[in-house]
C-alpha cells in the first residue's frame, strides 16, 4: 500500500467528492460528517508520510507512470522534506476549516462539501506532483472550487471577488502554461525527446536570455498567487468576501502554493534567470512586508486587516526564499507553515465573532476580553505568534529568514539594508495586531450588542486547540520540523549554487569556445612550417598543446556542456 500512498492521498478526496454528489441533498448532517471524516482519514494517511526517510534529499513514496509516452507526460509523485510539511499543513487545515464552517454554511451544503473535497485533491496534487504538466493540472484544478466557494458562499460582493480572484490567477497561470510547453520543446530540441518531468527538465541548460522569459512567466503565475506586491490586489477582496472556511484555506494553503512554486519549479529550473531577478523580487518582497503592514494598520474591516497582514507575512517568506541560504529557506518553509497556522487561526477567530455579530467593523467591538475571556486568550496568543513573539512559531521563522537575509551571499553588500527594512516589519506587525487587539478586546464593553456574546463553543475550541498547540510546538521545539527539511534544503542550495556557477554564462561561453575552434581550425599557416627548425617546431607544438588545453579548460569552466 505504501507504494501508492501518495496516489491514495490525492485521489481519495476526489472519490469522496463523487460520493457526495450521489448523496441526497437533504442529509446535511451525513454530508458534513462524511466530508470531515474523509478529511480526517486524509490527515491520518498523511501522517504515514512521516515514516519516510528524510535524512536524504531523495523523494519519498515516489510514484511514476507514463501517461502520454510520445509527449513525455508522466504521472510522477513524491514528497521530500520541503513538500512534506506543506502536505501535512494542507491535510490538517482542510478538516479544521471545514469543521469551523459547520454552522456558517446553511445553503448548498452538498456543493460546499464537494468543493472542499475537490479543493483538497487539487492542493495535495500540486504539492506532490513532480511532473510540470501534472502540477499545472492540479494548480488549475484548485482554482475552480476556490472561485466557487468565494462566489457562492461569500459575502455581499462575492461574485466580483470570485471573478477577480479567478482572472488574476488565471492570467498568471496561462503565461506559465506557455512557458511549460516551451520548456518541453527546448528539451526536445536538445535531446530529441519530449518530457515534462521536473527532474529531467532541471538538467536542461538554457541560455540566460531564454531563461529570463521563462522565469518571468513562471514568476508571474506564482507571484500572483503568493501574492507579491503589487499583484496582491485580489487578495483583500477574496478574503473579505470568502466564507470563513474559504479564507482559512486560501490563506493557509493556497498562497503557499505560490511560494512553493518558486521553490520547487521557478528557481531550480531557471537558476541564472532567477538570480538576475532576485534584486527586483527582494525589493518587492520587502515593499510587500512594509506596505502590507501599513495597509493592515488602517483597515476598519477586521478581515481585511488580516488579509493585508498576509501580504506582509508572505513578503517574509519570499525574502527567505530569495536569500538562498539554508536558514533563509528553512525559515521560509517554516514560516509558510506558521502563516498557515497563525493566519488560519486568525481567520477562524474573525469568523467566530462575525458569526455572532454579523459585522467585522473594528469600531463595533470593544471590551470583548471581559465578555469572551477564552476567545480573548486564544486571540492574543495567536496574534502574538503572528507578530513573531519569541517562544511562538512566528519568531523562529522570522528570525531564520532575517538572519538568512543578513547573511545571504546573493544579496551582497545590500544584505544589511534589506534586513534592516524587512525587520521593521516585525515592529509594524506588533503595531497592527495590537491595534486590532485593543479595538476588539480592550476598553469598556459599552456596545450593548457585545455584552452577551457567548464565549467559544466546544466546536470552535476543537478547531483552535490544535493550532495553538502548533504555535508553541514550533516556537519551542522547531527541530521536529527543521531537521527533516535540512537535507532537501541543502540539496537545493547546493544545486542552485552549482548550476548558477556553471550555467550563468555558460551559453555565451560555450558559443565563444565553439566559435574560436571553428574560426581557427588550424591556427598556423602551413606554409611557414616547412622553414621551421625542429626545435622551433617542438616549441610550437608545445604552444599548440597548451592552446588546445586552454580551449579544454574553457570548455570546463563553461561547464554543463557535457
Amino acid at each position, binding site marked *: 500500500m505504501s507504494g501508492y500512498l501518495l496516489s491514495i492521498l490525492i485521489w481519495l478526496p476526489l472519490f469522496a467528492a463523487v460520493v457526495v454528489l450521489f448523496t441526497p441533498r437533504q442529509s446535511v448532517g451525513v454530508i458534513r460528517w462524511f466530508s470531515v471524516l474523509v478529511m480526517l482519514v486524509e490527515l491520518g494517511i498523511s501522517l504515514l508520510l512521516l515514516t519516510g526517510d528524510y535524512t536524504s534529499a531523495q523523494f519519498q513514496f515516489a510514484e511514476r507512470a507514463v501517461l502520454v509516452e510520445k509527449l513525455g507526460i508522466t504521472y510522477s509523485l513524491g514528497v521530500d522534506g520541503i513538500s512534506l510539511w506543506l502536505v501535512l499543513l494542507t491535510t490538517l487545515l482542510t478538516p479544521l476549516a471545514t469543521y469551523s464552517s459547520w454552522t456558517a454554511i446553511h445553503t448548498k451544503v452538498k456543493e460546499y462539501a464537494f468543493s472542499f473535497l475537490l479543493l483538497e485533491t487539487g492542493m495535495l496534487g500540486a504539492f506532490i506532483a513532480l511532473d510540470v504538466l501534472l502540477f499545472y493540472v492540479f494548480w488549475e484544478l484548485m482554482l475552480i472550487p476556490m472561485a466557487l466557494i468565494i462566489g457562492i458562499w461569500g459575502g455581499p460582493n462575492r461574485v466580483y471577488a470570485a471573478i477577480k480572484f479567478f482572472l488574476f490567477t488565471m492570467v498568471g497561470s496561462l503565461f506559465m502554461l506557455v512557458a511549460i510547453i516551451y520548456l518541453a520543446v527546448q528539451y526536445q530540441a536538445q535531446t530529441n525527446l519530449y518530457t515534462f518531468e521536473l527532474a529531467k527538465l532541471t538538467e536542461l541548460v538554457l541560455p540566460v536570455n531564454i531563461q529570463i522569459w521563462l522565469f518571468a512567466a513562471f514568476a508571474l503565475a506564482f507571484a500572483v498567487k503568493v501574492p507579491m506586491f503589487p499583484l496582491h490586489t485580489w487578495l*483583500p477582496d477574496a478574503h473579505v468576501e470568502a466564507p470563513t472556511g474559504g479564507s482559512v484555506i486560501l490563506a493557509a494553503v493556497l498562497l503557499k502554493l505560490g511560494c512553493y512554486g518558486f521553490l520547487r519549479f521557478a528557481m531550480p529550473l531557471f537558476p541564472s534567470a532567477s538570480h538576475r531577478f532576485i534584486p527586483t523580487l527582494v525589493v518587492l518582497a520587502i515593499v510587500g512586508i512594509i*506596505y502590507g503592514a*501599513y*495597509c493592515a*494598520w*488602517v483597515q476598519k474591516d477586521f478581515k481585511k486587516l488580516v488579509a493585508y497582514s498576509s501580504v506582509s507575512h508572505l513578503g517574509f517568506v519570499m525574502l527567505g526564499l530569495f536569500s538562498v541560504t*539554508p*536558514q533563509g529557506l528553512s525559515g521560509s518553509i517554516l514560516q509558510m507553515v506558521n502563516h498557515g497556522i497563525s493566519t488560519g487561526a486568525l481567520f477562524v477567530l474573525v469568523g467566530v465573532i462575525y458569526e455572532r455579530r454579523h459585522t467585522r467593523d473594528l469600531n463595533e467591538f*470593544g*471590551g470583548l*476580553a*471581559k465578555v469572551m*475571556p477564552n476567545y480573548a486568550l486564544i486571540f492574543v496568543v495567536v496574534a*502574538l505568534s503572528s507578530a513573531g513573539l*519569541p*517562544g511562538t512559531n512566528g*519568531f*523562529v521563522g522570522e528570525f*531564520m529568514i532575517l*538572519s538568512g537575509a*543578513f*547573511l545571504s551571499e546573493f544579496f551582497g*553588500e545590500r544584505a*544589511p539594508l534589506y*534586513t*534592516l527594512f524587512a*525587520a521593521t516589519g*516585525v*515592529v509594524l506587525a506588533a*503595531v497592527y495586531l*495590537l*491595534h486590532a487587539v*485593543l479595538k476588539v478586546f*480592550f*476598553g*469598556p*464593553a459599552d456596545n450593548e450588542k457585545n455584552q452577551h456574546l457567548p464565549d467559544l463553543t466546544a466546536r470552535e475550541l476543537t478547531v483552535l486547540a490544535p493550532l495553538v498547540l502548533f504555535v508553541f510546538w514550533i516556537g*519551542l521545539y522547531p*527541530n521536529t520540523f*527543521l531537521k527533516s527539511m535540512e537535507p532537501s534544503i541543502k540539496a537545493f542550495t547546493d544545486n542552485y549554487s552549482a548550476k548558477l556557477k556553471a550555467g550563468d554564462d555558460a*551559453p*555565451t561561453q560555450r*558559443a*565563444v569556445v565553439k*566559435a*574560436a*575552434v*571553428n*574560426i*581557427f*581550425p588550424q591556427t*598556423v*599557416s*602551413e*606554409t*611557414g612550417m616547412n622553414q*621551421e627548425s625542429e626545435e*622551433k617546431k617542438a616549441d610550437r607544438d608545445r604552444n599548440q598543446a597548451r592552446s588546445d588545453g*586552454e580551449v579544454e579548460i*574553457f570548455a570546463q569552466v563553461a561547464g554543463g556542456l557535457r
Partner: protein
Amino acid sequence: MEFAVERTLLWIVLLPLAGAIINGLAGRYASRTTVHTVAVGSVAMAFGLALLAFVRLYLLRAAGEQDAKLIYTLYEWFAITVNNSQVSIPVRFIMDALGGAMTLVVSGVGLLIHIYACGYMKDDPSYARFFSYMNLFMASMLLLVLASNVPLMFVGWEGVGLCSYLLIGFWFENKSYAEAGRKAFITNRIGDFGVLIAMFLLVQAVGSFEFETINRHAVELAGRWAFGLPALRMTVATVATLFLFLGCTGKSAQIPLFVWLPDAMAGPTPVSALIHAATMVTSGVYLICRLSPVFAVAPTSMAVVAIIGTATAFLAATIALVQNNMKRILAYSTVSQLGFMFAAAGCGAFAAGFFHVYTHAFFKACLFLGAGSVMHAVGAHGDADIRQLGGLRRFQPRTNWTFLASCLAIAGVPLFSGFFSKDEILVGALSVGDFFFFAPWLGRVLFAVLVIAAILTAFYMFRLYFMTFWGDYRGGPSHDNAEHGGHDPHESPGSMTWPLVLLGVGAIVGGYLWVGALGLLHLHWEPWVVWLEPSLASIGTEHHTSHIAWALGLGTTAAVVGIGIAWSWYARKDVETPKRLKEQFPEVHQFLMDKWRVDELYDATILGGSRRLGIASANFDNAAIDGLLASASSKAVKGLSYLFTRIQTGVVHAYGAIMVAGIVAVAWWFIFPHARIDVQLDENGLARNPVHLAAGEGLGYEYQWDIDSDGTFETDWQSGSKLEHRYSIDELKPGSVVIFAGSGYGVHTKQSKLMPGEPFHLDENLLGSWQHPDEYFKKTYPKLVGVLPKIEADEDGGVIIRPNGAVVARTGKRIEREETIRVRPGESVSIGEAKLTIAGYAQATVAVKNAFGLISRDSITFTIARDSGSNAPQAYLGGTR
C-alpha cells in the same frame, strides 16, 4: 555534590512559568488562596533554588575557581548556517557571577512583591489573571538573566515586554490603560529591532550567539568594518553595540524611547515596583554588562551610552520636579536613575552601574510599594495626587519609615545604599578621562551634569516625601471612584508592610556590599567588584584619590542641598517659594509639566507620520494598484468589447462594406506574392558555411535563388522554400570585409566595411580584447603592444594588412615595418599568435512566384564566419618563429 545543581537553573525558570500556566488556565475557577499559593509558592521555590545555585557558585569561587559558572543545556532550539558552518542555538542556562547576582535580585525582590501583591490586589476580580501575568514575568525575566546566548535571552527580553504590556493594560476596561500598554510594547519592539540586528552582526563576525564566545572575540569585533564597508568608518563592535543600545533605550526607558515608562504607571502598583522599577527596566544595563567586553572596545558607543544616560538622568529629573502624582514622580525618578546606571556603564564603570541596579532595586521597589501602601490607605485607584495627601506619617508609621529610608538612599545620603552606588558612578565619570580619546573633557562634563541631576533627585524625592507624609492630611483623592470613601487613612496589612520593611532594610544596608563589612577598615577590599570581576570588562581607568574626593564631596553636597531646599519649601508650612517660582516662570513650569512635550513631538512626527503613511498606503492600494490592475484592465477589456459590439450594428450595408474590405485584403494577399528571405545566424550574428537560407512560405509559391545577388539566378523555379549553400571566397562581395580578432581563448569580432582607400585601424578595444582578463593568461599569452596593425582594402576586393610596428610581446620580436600581407575575404592571418580573420559579406536574393505568376523579390545581406570546411590558404605575418 552529586546532585546536579546545574539543573536548578532550569527550574528557576520553569517553576514560575508553571505557575503562570496553572493560574492562567485554571486560576479563574480556583480560590484566591490556591491562586496565591501557586503564584507565591512558585516564585519562592525559584528564589530558594536561586540561592542554592548561588551558594554553589560561591563555593566554587571560594575554592579558587575564578571563572566558575553553572551551565545547564536542555536541548537545541534551532540552528542557522553562518559562513558554511552550523551555529546552534541551544536552550542553555548559565549562571556566572553577574547572572547569579542578578538572579538573586530578581527572584528576591520579585518574591517580596508577590507577597505584597497578595494584600494589594486582594479585592481585584481578576486575581488569578494578575498572578498568572506576574509569574510569567518572573519566568521571562529569569530567562533573560540566565540565558547563555543572545536569541534565548531575546525570548526573555520580549517576554518581559509582553508581560509589561499585559500588566500595564491589566485594567483594560479603561481604554487609556490599554493604550499605555500598547505604547509600552511597541516602543519596546522598536528597541528589540535593534537587538535583532545586533545579533546578526555579532553572529556574522563571531560565528556564535553565545555571550561567552562573543565576549572572547570582542577584540576581533573591533578590528572589522561593519557590514564589510570600510567607508562607514565604524567597526562591527561599534555598530553592534549601538544597535544593542537601541534595544536598551527601549527596555530601560532612555532617550529617545523613554516615553512609555511614565504611562506604564497605569498598571497596578506591584507591577510598577517589580517591572517598571526593580527588574525589567534594568535589563538594558544588565545586557550592557553581559557584553561589556564588546562595549569596552567601542569607545564611540560607550560615549553615546554615557551621554544618553546622563542626558536622560537630567531630563527625567527636571520633569519629576513638578509632577504631582506619586507614581508619576517615581516613574520619572526611575527613568532618571536608569540614566545614572547607563552613564556609569558608558564610562566603563560597569560594576558601579550594575551596583546601582542592585541598590535601586531595593529602594525603588520600596518606594513604589510605599506609594501603593499610601494609595491603598487613602483609597486612590491608579495614582495619588500628593497635593491631596499629607501627614500620613501619623497614620502609616511603617510605610513612613521605610519610605524615608528609601528617599535617603535614592538621594545619596552617606551610609545609605544609594550613596555608595551613586558615588561610584560619579567616580566612574570623573575617571574615564582619555578613554574617550576624541573628547577627553567628556567625563568631566558628564560628572557635572550628573551632580546637578543628583541635586534634583534629592529635591524632588523629598518634595514627594514631605508633601505626602508631613504636614496635615489634605483629605485624600476626590472620592467618586475610590473604594474606601470617607475613612481616615490606615496602615496597610502585614502582607504589604513586611515586604516594605525588608526592602527598606535593604535600602539602608545594601550598599555595604560594595565596601564589605570590613570595608571601613580595609578600604581596598571591594567584594562587589571582586565578585563581578570575571564577568565584567575593564577599560583600565584608575581611580585617583582626588576623583574619589571630588565625587564624595560633591555627591554628598548634592544630597544635602537637594534635601535642604525641599525641606525649606515643603516641610515648613505656608512657604510661598514654589508658587512664586511657578508664577514667575510659567513657561518653564508648563514645559516641565508637559514633560518637555516629547510625547507631543512624537505624536506629531513619528506616530502621526506613520499613521498618515498607513492611510496613504491604503488609499494608494485602492486607487492606484487596484485601479490599475483591476479596474483599468477591466475597463480596457470592456472598452474593446464595446468597440466590437459597435461593429455588430445590424446595418446590412455596413456588414457589406466590411465584407468587401475583407475580400479585397484577402485577394491582395493571394494575388501578390510576399517575398521574405531569412538566414540562419549563430550566436555572434554570423552565418555559418554552409549557409541556410529560407524564404517565406505561401500557397502555391515557387522560388528562385540568386545566392550572390549578381542578377543571375543560380537555381530554377522550385517549390522548396529553403536553400543550403556553401559560399566560396569568390562569391563573397568584394570590398566588404569583417574582421575577427582572437586567439585560442576566445573570439572578439569587430565588423566594419572596408572601403578601398580608407585605411582601417584596429582600435584599443580590440587590442584590449587580445589580452585575456585572467592574470595567468595575460602573462603567458602573447599580445600586441605598441602601434596596431593597419588594414586597408584594395581595389580588387583584397585586404592589405600592415603590421605597423606591432610587437609580439612574449617573443619580443618586432615585426618588420615593411612587411605587408594581402589576404582575401574569408582568409585569416596570424600576427604573432594572435589571429585576424577577414570575413566576407554576401548578399542573397530570392524571387517568389505565386500561382498567378506574379513575382516579388527580397534580398538579405549577411556576414559569413569561416568554417572548418573551407581551408582557404592562410597567411602568417611577422616572419618565421
